[in-house]
C-alpha cells in the first residue's frame, strides 16, 4: 500500500515536470512535446498530460486510501461505488467476450472508460492558463478587468524564470482529434486486431477480410478493408464531434448570454451528461470491436 502512495506521487511529479517542460515555449501556438520514436514523430498535448497527471494521482491515491479500509463483511460507501463500477464492466466484458477470456480484457476496458470520462470532465475545472510568479506588463486591461497580460520575454536569460511557472488551462483533451484517434488506434487496431491474430492465427485474421468466403469473398475484399478503416474513423470522430460540438455550443451561447446562469445548465448537459454517455459509447464500441475478433465460441 505504501508502495502505491510512493508510485502515485512519483507518477504525478513526473507528469508535472513533463507539463512544465511542455509549456515553456515562447510561441503563441502551443506546440506539444515532440519526440521521435523509430523515425515516427510523436506528440503529446498539454491537456492530455495534465489530465494524465490528475488521473494518475487520483487513482493511485484512491487505491491507497480505499484499499486500506476495504472489508468484505462491512463495506463502506466508497467501496460499494468502486465495486459497482468494476462489477458493471466485469459483467459487460463477460457478456460480450465470454466468461473466461472476458476477465482478461476487464483492465483495458475499465481504464479506457475512466480515462475518457476524466478527459471529458476536465473542462469543468475552472483553471485558466496561468504563469505563476511571472512579471506582467499591466494588471488592468482597457475594460478595467484584471488581465494577466503577456509575460516578459527576455531571450537573453533563462526563459523559464521570466515566464513564471506555467500552468496550462484545463480543457477537454478529447476535443483535440488526435486523442480520440490515438485511443481508437490503440484499442481497435492494436488490441482488437492483435487479439484476433493471437487467437485465430494470421490465416484466420486474413480470412476475415474475405468474409463471406468463396468467389463473393474476393469481390468483397476492398469493401472489408474500407470497413475496417471506417471502424476507427467512426469511433474516433463520434467522440471528437460530440465533445468539440459541446465546447463550441457552450462558448457561443455563453458569449451571447454574457455568462449569466445559463452556462451552468449547458455545462451540466454538454459537459457532464453528454460526456458520460459518449465515454460509455466509446467504451462499448471498443469492447464490441474487440469481441468481434476475440469472443469465445
Amino acid at each position, binding site marked *: 500500500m505504501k508502495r502505491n502512495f510512493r508510485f502515485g506521487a512519483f507518477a504525478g511529479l513526473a507528469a508535472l515536470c513533463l507539463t512544465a517542460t511542455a509549456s515553456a515555449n515562447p510561441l503563441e501556438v502551443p506546440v506539444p512535446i515532440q519526440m521521435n520514436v523509430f523515425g515516427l514523430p510523436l506528440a503529446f498535448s498539454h491537456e492530455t498530460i495534465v489530465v494524465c497527471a490528475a488521473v494518475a494521482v487520483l487513482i493511485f491515491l484512491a487505491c491507497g486510501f480505499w484499499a486500506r479500509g476495504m472489508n468484505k463483511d462491512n463495506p463502506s460507501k466508497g467501496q460499494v461505488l468502486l465495486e459497482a463500477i468494476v462489477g458493471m464492466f466485469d459483467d*459487460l466484458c463477460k*457478456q460480450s467476450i465470454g466468461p473466461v477470456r472476458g476477465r482478461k480484457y476487464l483492465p483495458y476496458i475499465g481504464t479506457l472508460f475512466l480515462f475518457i470520462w476524466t478527459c471529458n470532465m476536465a473542462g469543468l475545472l475552472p483553471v485558466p492558463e496561468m504563469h505563476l510568479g511571472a512579471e506582467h506588463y499591466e494588471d488592468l486591461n482597457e475594460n478595467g478587468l484584471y488581465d494577466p497580460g503577456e509575460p516578459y520575454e527576455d531571450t537573453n536569460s533563462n526563459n523559464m524564470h521570466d515566464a513564471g511557472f506555467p500552468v496550462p488551462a484545463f480543457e477537454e483533451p478529447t476535443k483535440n482529434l488526435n486523442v480520440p484517434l490515438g485511443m481508437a488506434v490503440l484499442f481497435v487496431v492494436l488490441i482488437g486486431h492483435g487479439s484476433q491474430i493471437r487467437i485465430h492465427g494470421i490465416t484466420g485474421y486474413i480470412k476475415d477480410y474475405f468474409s463471406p468466403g468463396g468467389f463473393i469473398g474476393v469481390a468483397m475484399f476492398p*469493401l472489408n478493408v*474500407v*470497413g475496417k478503416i*471506417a471502424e476507427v*474513423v*467512426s469511433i474516433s*470522430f*463520434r467522440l471528437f*464531434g*460530440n465533445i*468539440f*460540438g*459541446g465546447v*463550441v*455550443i457552450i462558448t*457561443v451561447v455563453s458569449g451571447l448570454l454574457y455568462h449569466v446562469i445559463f452556462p451552468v445548465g449547458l455545462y451540466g*448537459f454538454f459537459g457532464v*451528461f*453528454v460526456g458520460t*454517455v459518449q465515454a*460509455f*459509447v466509446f467504451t*462499448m*464500441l471498443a469492447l*464490441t470491436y474487440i469481441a*468481434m475478433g476475440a469472443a469465445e465460441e
Partner: protein
Amino acid sequence: MDIANLSAFLGAGLAMGLGAIGSGWGAGYVVTGSLNGMARQPSEQPGLFRSMLINQALASNPSIFALVISILLYNMGGADLDAPDSWAQAAAFLAAGLCVGIGTLGSGAGSGLVGSEAVESVGRCPSSQGRVTMMMLIAHAWAQTPCIFSLVISLVLLYVIGGFNQMVGQSNYIDIVNAGRLLGMGLCMGAGAVGPAIGIAFVGSRVCRATAEAPDALQKIRNTFFVGAAVSESTAIYALVISLLLKP
C-alpha cells in the same frame, strides 16, 4: 473574394437548417415510445423518463455535428479571404454545408426510431433494462456512423480544400471542373448517408425489442444485428469511397 464569402454563409445556413430536420423529428419521436411505455407500465415512469432523456440527447447528436460545421463556415465567411475569385473554393464551402446538412437527415430520424423502440421495450420488460440500454447505445452509434462519414467529408472539404486556397489561381476550365467535383463530392456523401442510416435504424429498433422479449438469445440477436447492419452500412461506404475518389 465575394463568391467564397457568399457560399460560406449559404453553406452555414443550409447545414444547420437541413441538419435540424432529422434530429428534431427523431428527438420528438422518442417521446411517443416513452408515452407508450408509460401507458403499459405506469409504475416504471421514472426509469422510462430517464431513458427518454438519454435517447433524446443521442437523437440530437447529428444536429450537433451540423452545428459545428455551420459555425466553422460562419467564421470562414466572416474572415477576409484575401485571394482572387475561385469557383472551386466557393463550391467547397457550399458542398461542406450541403454534405453535413443532408447527411444528418437520415441519422437524426433513425436515432429517433431506435430511441422510441428502446424506451417502449423497457416499458414492455423492465427487468431487462440493462441489456436493452446496452444494445440501444450500440444501435444509436451504428445508425449515426453514416452521418459521421458526412462530417468527415465536410471537414475535408472545409480545411483540406477550402481553407488553404489550393484551388485558387487555376485556369478557368480547371476551376469549373474542380467546382463540379467538389459539389459532387459533398452531394454524394450527403445523400448517400440518408438511406443506410434509416436502414440500420430499422435493424437497431427491432434489436432493442428482440432483446427485451428474449434476453437469453442476446448473443444470436447481436450477431445477426452486426452482420445485417454491416451489410446495410456498405452502401454508405460506397458513397464514402466515390466521394474520396472525386476529390480533386
